[in-house]
């Protein structure tokens, strides 16, 4: 278990200064994640069709620092939306970033907005 590099910091919706246009909604898989690049950061963006909700978190798994979370299975645990890392199945809450099944450090999460068929991810820089 390791600490993520400092460029990954959770952004609260009210702290967003830059809504980055990540792509058209139909470019993203339905019920899974895909990855975008924002500067030197890799951000995983997930769409939960049943709840019609979008979430984003760092693509980097804090467990072994590999850029893989966007390729993990997504789901819900007692109402909390989560992603399971494809490498060792650590699960992370997509609302708080917290590791739900272990003692890994949390992942940074980012607000997502959808407007006119485009997906926007919120950054504070």
């Amino acid at each position, binding site marked *: *278990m*390791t*600490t993520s*590099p*400092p460029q990954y910091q959770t952004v609260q919706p009210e702290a967003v200064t830059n809504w980055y246009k*990540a*792509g058209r909604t139909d*470019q*993203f*898989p*339905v*019920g*899974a994640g*895909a*990855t*975008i*690049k924002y500067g030197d950061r*890799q951000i995983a*963006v997930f769409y*939960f069709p*049943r*709840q019609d909700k979008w979430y984003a978190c760092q693509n980097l798994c804090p467990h*072994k*620092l*590999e*850029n*893989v979370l966007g*390729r*993990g*299975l*997504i*789901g*819900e*645990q*007692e*109402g909390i939306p*989560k992603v*399971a890392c*494809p*490498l060792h*199945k650590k*699960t992370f809450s997509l609302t708080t970033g*917290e590791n739900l099944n272990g*003692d*890994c*450090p*949390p992942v940074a999460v980012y607000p997502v907005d959808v407007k006119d068929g485009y997906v926007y991810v919120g950054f504070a820089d």
Partner: protein
Amino acid sequence: MERIILVGNGMVGHKFCELFSKHPQRAAFELVVFGEECRPAYDRVHLSAFFADRDAERLSLATQSWYDEQGINLKCGTPITSVDVNNKRVVTASGETIGYDYLVFATGSSPFVPPIPGREKAGVFVYRTIEDLEGILDYAEVVKKTKSGKATVMGGGLLGLEAAKATLDMGLESHVVEFAARLMPRQLDDRGATVLKDTVEGLGLHIHTNKNTANIGGNGSITHLEFSDGQQLETDMLIVSAGIRPRDELARAAGIKVGDRGGICVDEYLRTSAPNVFAIGEAALYQSMIYGLVAPGYEMARVALSAIFADHEAQAMPDVIDMSTKLKLIGTDVASFGQAITNEDEARSIVFQDDVAGIYKRINISLDGKRLLGGILVGDAADYNMLHQIQRNGMSIPPQPEDLILGARGGESSGASVLDLPDEAVICSCENVTKGALCGHLDDGSAQSVKDLAGCTKAGSGCGGCKPMLTDLVDAYMKSQGKVVRNVICEHFPYTRQELRDLIVMKNIRTYDEALDEVGTGHGCESCKPALASIFATSYMETANPQAVIQDTNDRFLANIQRNGTYSVVPRVAGGEISPKQLVDMGRIAEKYDLYTKITGGQRIDMFGARLEELPLIWEELIAAGFESGHAYGKALRTVKSCVGSTWCRYGMDEAVSFAIELENRYKGLRSPHKLKGGVSGCIRECAEARGKDFGLIAVEGGYNLYVCGNGGARPKHAELLAGPIDRKTAFLYLDRMLIFYLRTAPPLTRTAAWLDNMEGGIDYLKSVVIDDALGLNAEFEAEMNSLVAAYRCEWKEAVETPHLRSRFQTFINTDEEDSTLEFVDLRGQKMPKAWA
């Protein structure tokens, strides 16, 4: 109403309040608590977790409003500055005076900082409070940016190693200097400490033993340490973890008796030398010792409270305090229990050491061979809970005590079961919960799981060290009661795999969403998605393409993910037979995409290191050269291994290769609860290791013997004879039936060996189904297999030829750039991913 004043709101002080709030006589007392820290009690044991998220709330043991609700008057940020035992009153920092009937010191301890010149310099820290950690984090950020980023911990004990690992995780170069000749000198012997040193050095810590720090150098802020041997160590920060000193200053000034080396002297009821004054936790000196662990502190809180209430439960502190510990968080297991270090004249020691694996285990046995006195575990502490229980409860030990750490050789397990423990055995020492109490809750049905037990008794909520044992207890208890723990899929589908499969087929449900709507609840998770994918695949021969997002990671991208997030590519090589032309084609493609190649244990070729976006390109070329998916990524038929058989071999009884190819081609693409492997050997010499597979055929006089339900891997098992000698056609028939029976009835991720193990009636029952048609379903089984075989398609071909399926192999949505974080290094002329930090 009498008033109790509690000084100190740390872990033990809080435990006192918690017990107070539940005490039946509490109405007779008023409790006022003064805490020096600015927040209510928090979990110091898991303090290091604060580094990960800076979330103080997560460590909190109780909130101010909890105290309010309990009617306990808690004043945080209000240290007591003096105590007057003659007039029974205390004075607060703000000058307020307040009287007591009973006074309890729970003032804890402070880190000991040896009087080394330079210790006041910036960059020198201790490790005890949330504020200490905030200081360390902030300083580390600065140091990482402006300096070399080196941190040193003074003290190689339990806490020092934990702090060192934390600095390593912060991205600093981390050193530990220890005065003694070895790490954890109080808990470990020389050999155990050496194994631990090798292991933590492997994690990246730099360990310096035999180092006496003479000076902390630097101009204003620390730059290096100077040792008495004349050597120096450059460092940008220092965390001192050189032991603790009990906070007895208030008591001392009030004239209460304290020990020569500090600590408020208490008797077996935690009474100090002053009337109606008690001391508990790390501030208390009991039997000339300070106990720096929560469990003895919690025990003190209990005893002191019942002494004040003079209740019928009033009992004294035990004579012997258990100081067993299991170290957490440092990336390797370390535990010591009972008398860890003994001499030859008091005990016989048994030692197991494996330097390659970094494992050291020592147990000390009484000279009469009857009792376990204590021991040390480094590198593998899985046995800690059980050994600790055996020692603590004086349970009898096996005639060959070495079985305790080596496991019995010769099949039978030596391990005592949790159910053998006496009822008084304390399972959770933090919360003092006995086995008897836990079983009581299981007996009366108020608990059925570890979670329930935690709810009823708080067991497992402290250091968490007893959790594995709680799990064992619940499992063993349920089994002993003949209660089967129903293996349901997850919170979204309260069914076993077989029940769910029957529902899906009966209702002709075709998609995951429909399944959730019709027979599930909520929105699904990573457990039920692949389980349903497997049901769709085994019922309808659906490939992993149409519902890619519910597939397990590997199936979603039709390739095995590797440790750096790249993928491997394994084309099918049925029976292991491959032509020179195919070898050349594969070699050409591997060279073009710079893939690492290796012959697998399944007689085919694996090509590693493909990027996500390269997968369809590589497969396009492989398909053009005549290859198909090998399903190496799926819970599906993998390979049918063969020996060369009578084609070339002088002993061969039949053409094993041809039969293996036929078998592999019939069952290829077949998805199942777990992976499926087959083998065909040309004679009883068994060069194809067919009996190590889910199905194995061995050519004998008059046909083949068909063996089923074998396994390699971690729990090897030879396949058992289902029928023989039989001809190839009959072998296919029996296999068709047996495989469909398995597909329908096995729980998720259960290999055929485990499936048969759990089958009532075992192989004889399986024979009655497959050969004698005991269920009358054989015709249905055969028809089902035929339709699955007929529906086979190469899913890679499907994926590369269908644009909307192909679009998923894309690293980034918003750019065609490659992932620049992937790093490879050279390995004997090929590439491999850079090692994990």
